[in-house]
C-alpha cells in the first residue's frame, strides 16, 4: 500500500533554480541598498534579470514535469492545490497588514492630522469616479475568467482563448486607469500617513493585478498550445484563484481607503 502511494508522487530532478533565485534575491536587496547610497542601479538590475531568468526556467521545468512527463497525478495536484491555498492565504495576511496600518491611523486620528479622517489638507479621490470603474473592470474580469474556466472544462478551445484574452485585456485596462489616477491624484505618498497608507496599499494591489495578468498570459499561451485538458488544468485554476483573491482585496480597499468622509 505504502509503495503504491509513493508511486503516485514524484521527486524533482536536481535544479539550479533555487540557487539562482536566491542569488537574484541577494542581488536585488543589496542592489537596492547600494542604489540608495551610491546612485547606481547596476547591481539591482542584474538581480532583476537573474530573477526573470529563474522564473522562466523554473516554470518551464514545472510545465515539462506536469504536461510532458505526466508527473502531476491526482495526489500531486492535491499538494499543488494546498500549496497555492497556503500562498494566497499568506498574501491575504500581507494585505491585512496594510489595512491595519490605514485603520490604525484613520479610526483614531491624532491632533497632528487635525483630529479628523481624512486628515486636514488632503483632497481625497471621489470613490464613485475611477475607483468605481476599476471595481467594475475587476469584477468583469472575474466573470470572464469564470467563463474561460467553464470553456476549458467543456473542451471549447476557441471560446476559452477568447475569454482568457478578454480577461487579460481587462487587467491591462485596470492597470492603465490606475496609472492615470496615480498621475492625476492631488496627494502623494509623501503626504502624511494618509498618502503613505493609500499608495502603499493600492500600489501593492496594482502590482498583484500585473502579476495576475502575466499569469493569465502564460495560461493563454499554454491553452493555445493544447496543454490544458478538460479535467486537468491546474495552472489555470491557480491563476484564477490568485486573481479572485486580488479582486477581493480591491473591493475591501474600495470600501475603506477611498471614502471621502470620516469612516
Amino acid at each position, binding site marked *: 500500500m505504502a509503495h503504491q502511494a509513493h508511486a503516485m508522487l514524484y521527486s*524533482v530532478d536536481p535544479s*539550479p533554480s533555487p540557487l*539562482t533565485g536566491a542569488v537574484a534575491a541577494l542581488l536585488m536587496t543589496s542592489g537596492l541598498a*547600494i542604489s540608495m547610497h*551610491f546612485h547606481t542601479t547596476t*547591481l539591482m538590475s542584474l538581480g532583476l534579470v*537573474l530573477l526573470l531568468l529563474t522564473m522562466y526556467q523554473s516554470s518551464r521545468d514545472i510545465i515539462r514535469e506536469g*504536461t*510532458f512527463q*505526466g508527473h502531476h497525478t491526482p495526489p500531486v495536484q492535491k499538494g499543488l492545490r494546498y500549496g497555492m491555498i497556503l500562498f494566497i492565504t499568506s498574501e491575504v495576511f500581507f494585505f491585512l497588514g496594510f489595512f491595519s496600518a490605514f485603520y490604525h491611523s484613520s479610526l483614531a486620528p491624532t491632533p497632528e492630522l487635525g483630529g479628523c479622517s481624512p486628515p486636514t489638507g488632503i483632497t481625497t479621490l471621489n470613490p464613485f469616479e475611477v475607483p468605481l470603474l476599476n471595481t467594475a473592470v475587476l469584477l468583469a474580469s472575474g466573470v470572464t475568467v469564470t467563463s474561460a474556466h467553464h470553456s476549458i472544462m467543456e473542451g471549447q478551445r476557441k471560446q476559452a482563448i477568447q475569454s482568457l484574452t478578454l480577461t487579460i485585456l481587462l487587467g491591462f485596462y485596470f492597470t492603465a486607469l490606475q496609472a492615470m489616477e496615480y498621475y492625476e491624484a492631488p496627494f502623494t505618498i509623501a503626504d502624511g500617513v494618509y498618502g503613505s497608507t493609500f499608495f502603499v496599499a493600492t500600489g501593492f494591489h496594482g502590482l498583484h493585478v500585473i502579476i495576475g495578468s502575466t499569469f493569465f498570459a502564460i495560461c493563454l499561451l499554454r491553452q493555445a498550445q493544447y496543454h490544458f485538458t478538460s479535467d486537468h488544468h491546474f495552472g489555470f485554476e491557480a491563476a484564477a484563484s490568485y486573481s479572485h483573491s486580488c479582486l477581493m482585496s480591491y473591493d475591501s480597499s474600495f470600501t475603506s481607503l477611498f471614502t471621502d468622509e470620516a469612516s
Partner: protein
Amino acid sequence: VYQNVVAVQQMARRSICSSARRQVENKVPQKQKVFQEDNGMPVHLKGGSSDALLYRATMALTVLGVGFTLYELVKASFPQKKD
C-alpha cells in the same frame, strides 16, 4: 478610385481569412516523447542545446553577481574620506 478601394478591401479580406485559417498545431505528443526519453538528463537540460545555453548564461550571471555584490559591499564598508 472606387475600383482601388474594392481591390484593397478584397486583399484585406483575403489576408485576414488566411491568418484565421492558420491553426496552431498540437505539439504536446511530440514534447511528451522528447521529455520522457530515458537519457538520464535532468528536466532543466532535457530540451536540448538551448537549455544548456540558457543554463550556462544564468549560472555565469549568478557567479558574477555574487562576486559583484561582495565587491560593492566591501567597497561600501570602507568609505573613502573626501579631501
